[in-house]
């Protein structure tokens, strides 16, 4: 379990989705979803594939505009902010993407310093120092800096992605499926890095995951989404909100089956569909 105790929530959530609906063309993904992220906490977003976890995270980070509803940062709506202000505010966030999303055309060094070069006036020696420090922080040697993303293993890519997300010293970090596709040992390394980042920097974290080991180790609070197509009309899409222990003890079969990794009645439902 996570070693440090969660901080008491502040009055105004650092991030909030208020009654958000999101669709892509005719495909609805979210319907009237409300999610609050308190300062300093680590929130795990769980749910089946395709239930809208990554979309929720991108909405929280301001990478997507909602079809309906309101996104608030520090209690202020994101909509209506000038694009320059939005870009500046977004720099307070670090984002580790699902596939790391490293820029293929750049080496590791250029990937990590991208945000610094684009948004600061730091001189190259200072940038170099930060890049090497971030590489050390995620447990990578300095010689990795010259490698291309194509030359890295899955775990190394995730760690470089994390180093890039940390380069601008963000207040909030989003981890989109940080352990997916990694072996158990590397998954634990990533979990450990999430915990270390949390304790060293006291950041707010949002972790999208299917991995219950990650939920147990890093999360203070869990929010579970249910796929919109299977939510009964009028019922909320957020089917659980609470601590990891509460999630594992949940009597709701949808939550219980998911956290225990049991098919339950799902196979029958799929056959009937």
């Amino acid at each position, binding site marked *: 379990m996570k070693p440090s105790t969660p901080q008491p929530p502040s009055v105004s959530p650092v991030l909030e989705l208020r009654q958000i609906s999101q669709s892509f063309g005719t495909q609805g993904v979210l319907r009237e979803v409300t999610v609050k992220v308190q300062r300093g906490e680590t929130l795990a977003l769980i749910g089946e594939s395709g239930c809208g976890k990554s979309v929720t995270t991108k909405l929280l980070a301001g*990478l997507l505009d909602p079809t309906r509803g309101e996104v608030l940062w520090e209690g202020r709506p994101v909509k209506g902010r000038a694009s320059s202000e939005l870009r500046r505010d*977004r*720099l307070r*966030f670090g984002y580790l*993407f699902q596939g790391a*999303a490293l*820029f293929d055309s750049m080496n590791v060094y250029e990937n990590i310093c991208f945000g610094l070069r*684009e948004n600061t006036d730091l001189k190259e020696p200072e940038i170099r120092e930060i890049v090497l420090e971030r590489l050390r922080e995620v447990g990578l040697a300095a010689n990795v800096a010259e490698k291309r993303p194509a030359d890295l293993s899955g775990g190394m890519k995730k760690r470089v992605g994390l180093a890039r997300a940390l380069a601008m010293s963000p207040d909030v970090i989003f981890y989109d499926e940080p352990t997916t596709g990694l072996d158990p040992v590397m998954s634990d390394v990533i979990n450990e890095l999430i915990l270390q980042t949390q304790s060293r920097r006291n950041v707010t974290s949002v972790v999208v995951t299917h991995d219950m080991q990650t939920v147990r180790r890093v999360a203070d609070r869990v929010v579970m989404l249910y796929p919109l197509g299977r939510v009964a009309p009028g019922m909320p899409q957020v089917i659980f909100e609470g601590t990891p222990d509460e999630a594992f003890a949940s009597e709701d079969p949808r939550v219980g089956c998911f956290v225990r990794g049991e098919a339950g009645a799902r196979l029958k439902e799929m056959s009937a569909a």
Partner: protein
Amino acid sequence: MSALSSNAADPTPIHMLGRMAVEIVEAIGDLVTFFLRMLGGMLVRWPRARVLWPVMYEIGVQSVPVIFVTGLFIGMVLAVQSYDTLRMFRLESRIGSIINVSLVRELGPVLAATMLAGRVGSAMAAEIGTMRVTEQIEALKALGADPLTYLVVPRFLACFLLIPALTLVADGVGMFGGWFVSVQVLGVSDHFFWLYSQQFISAYDVIAGVSKSLFFGAAIAVIACHRGFHCGAGAEGVGRAATDSFVFSFIAILVLDLLLSIALNNLYRLLWALGITVV
């Protein structure tokens, strides 16, 4: 109501034509909006040299060999094809004017643009499409960069500014190819080859050809980047974006060529009527 439902389920050719017209207008509107947003981004922030120079090298310098080879062979083929017809009328000494006027006015700009659309446009669409599919475009946003300014502006500038040079390369090499076959292989007089070329080509022809190429370059960059940004999911989406980029660019080049040729011919007549000559 029932008529509407039946139309939606089984559209008539008129419905399909109407739908296609709406889709074309929507696509053009979307493309123009994309172009205007890109121009807006260019005014707000000029691309940094370390981003712009590699793109210019890739688009300009790396395209020279392919344009060199195609220009050379088009010039030679023009000579081979024109020679027999001109010879029937004992006009083979004027072959230089046919080859060089064709090259400078039409083939040079269109050839350079087509090669650019094939070599560079498709690659740009595929690269940006791959970036979209692998969330790299969202990563740019997350790292404080505007994807439109960061990705599209340098590519637009490189295509727009370097296509005139590539057109002049195609013109020059094509002329050399035409001269080589006409004079060295088919035995046309070197003196008459250049004399008639000089008589028939004016500075206006060269300027008009190069001016056309600027529009072609802009169209290629905007279409390719637009296709990349609107790429569908997976490898199939990236492949489709690259193919669409070339097909739409090629159509745009031909349509623009026709419209610009008409406009430039009218401009020439207007200048001539006003007593302004561009020799």
